[in-house]
């Protein structure tokens, strides 16, 4: 072996050690701040720890068995599903529509783009409060406007459907610009030649969009949908502010239900078991995203 190659291998080894040293603080921090709490949550989910009553020392699967028969939990999964499916669908559809519209406008209408972005900048608590005010019959200008024509807008927040609708509207308002941004970037990446070629072949605009543009947008649409879907599993401020889980318990999504069990009922062990299930769902989806990511990069 020549002198230089040994030297180089030594240098590479030295380099890799340097890299490892740079990652170490991050690994340490993530272990301490994230992995340890997660392990704690898992441990708690097997316990019967209660904020006020403490623990009787029972350890086992009892929390998970209780979940299976808990109608409130099953109901919460249904609420989460409704919020996620309708919310994400509305965000993707509206986001795509605005992106296509902005893309078509010649000369790039920057002010329009900026106006559409404002809702995305508003923190979620403020979003929730704004929409709470708009769904408060005595305050809302929407109600006052329809009153002019003698139409009484029904109180949304006293029915399950209405309350879910209110949450979805608020969520859509602040998050459709996210979909819009991604789709707009994807649209700008699509070569105009393709669309023009299709137009020359006699395809109508609608058909060009459906058969040429849309398939090219699929990766972006998939990403937006996945990211929004995962976020929608974490629904909290909107529910906390707009409906508080009501009327009755009809808008307690799973994440909110975990909070209710843990911090309102004090049933930490049971709340932790719900959190574990939520976490596993997120883990499955992020595994899928990471795989997708790896496949595309290869």
């Amino acid at each position, binding site marked *: 072996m020549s002198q230089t190659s040994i030297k180089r291998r030594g240098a590479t080894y030295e380099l890799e050690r340097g890299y490892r040293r*740079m990652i170490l603080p991050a690994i340490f921090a993530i272990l301490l701040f994230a992995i340890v709490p997660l392990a704690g949550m898992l441990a708690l989910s097997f316990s019967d720890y209660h904020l006020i009553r403490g623990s009787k020392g029972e350890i086992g699967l009892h929390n998970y068995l209780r979940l299976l028969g808990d109608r409130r939990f099953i109901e919460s999964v249904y609420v989460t599903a409704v919020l996620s499916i309708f919310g994400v669908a509305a965000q993707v559809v509206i986001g795509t529509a605005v992106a296509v519209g902005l893309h078509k406008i010649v000369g790039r209408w920057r002010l329009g783009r900026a106006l559409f972005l404002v809702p995305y900048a508003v923190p979620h608590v403020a979003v929730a409060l704004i929409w709470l005010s708009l769904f408060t019959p005595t305050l809302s200008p929407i109600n006052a406007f329809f009153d002019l024509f003698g139409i009484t807008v029904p109180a949304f927040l006293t029915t399950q459907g209405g309350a879910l609708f209110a949450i979805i509207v608020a969520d859509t308002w602040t998050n459709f610009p996210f979909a819009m941004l991604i789709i707009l970037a994807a649209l700008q990446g699509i070569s105009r030649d393709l669309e023009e070629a299709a137009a020359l072949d006699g395809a109508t605009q609608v058909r060009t969009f459906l058969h040429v543009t849309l398939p090219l947008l699929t990766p972006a649409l998939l990403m937006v949908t996945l990211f929004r879907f995962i976020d929608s599993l974490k629904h909290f401020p909107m529910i906390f502010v707009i409906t508080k889980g009501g009327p009755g318990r009809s808008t307690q999504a799973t994440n909110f239900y975990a909070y209710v069990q843990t911090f309102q009922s004090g049933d930490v062990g049971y709340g932790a078991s719900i959190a574990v299930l939520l976490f596993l769902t997120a883990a499955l989806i992020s595994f899928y995203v990471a795989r997708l990511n790896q496949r595309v990069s290869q």
Partner: protein
Amino acid sequence: MIDRTGAFRVKRAIGVLVMLILLGFAALPTLWVLILAFRAPDAVFEPIWESPLKLTFANLFKITRSEFPGALMNSFITAGSSTVLAMLIGVPAGFALAKSRLSGKFIASWVLLLLRMAPPVGFVIPLFLVYVNAGMIDSYSGLVIAYMTLTLPLVTWSMWNSFAQVPDELIEAAIMDGASLAKAFVLVALPAARPGAVAAAILAFLVAWNDFFYSLIITRSNTTTAPVAVMNFISFDSVDWASIAVASIALTLPILPLVAIANRYIVQSLSGAVKG
């Protein structure tokens, strides 16, 4: 190619109409908050078209006398320090992940994504119990640590993507010239990835600034952040809508320019997730 037939005009008109409706959906609630913020106290419940001139600046002065400005300061302190810490730890880690030949990168990417996506309720339960026993409830350090679970994975992940776009040759050349790894990182790689680093810092700050959940659970009166403090305007007696509107604007204004700067990078950090 541009045809000016009637059908085209109708389609165009429909398109414009749809865009206007969507613009109304996006912009009118913002306009409503602006009105509400300047509404005279006795006119809050009156429609604006009935008394368009009952406006006042008093709501702005009123809120400066509440606890809200202090809470805004808490938000700056905690979001700011968790961003700085996450950058200090996450930027070198992102660099190393992008350039080293470490095995287990797939696991690393999965863990980072997972932490970014995990529901905060999972972290908060154990943190809460530890904080109660360690006397860290309502402390800055407790909140900053909680925010690190949000900011650190975000910064590491997006810096990994940013450094991946810096050509390997640049760093190799620097090291061939005798620079240490640390020098190559600071003097060569970091300047090349500066836009990405700015974006990562902004995104991390936004995530921490937006937080409601952690602050609600692990802070009390001293370190409450602004998003939780807004809720104090809803009291048992009454709901102070004008102050809520002013506070909502105060919560949004500081980050509006950040969103304007960072929105392009939001796209990149995600398309990073598409392209790798």
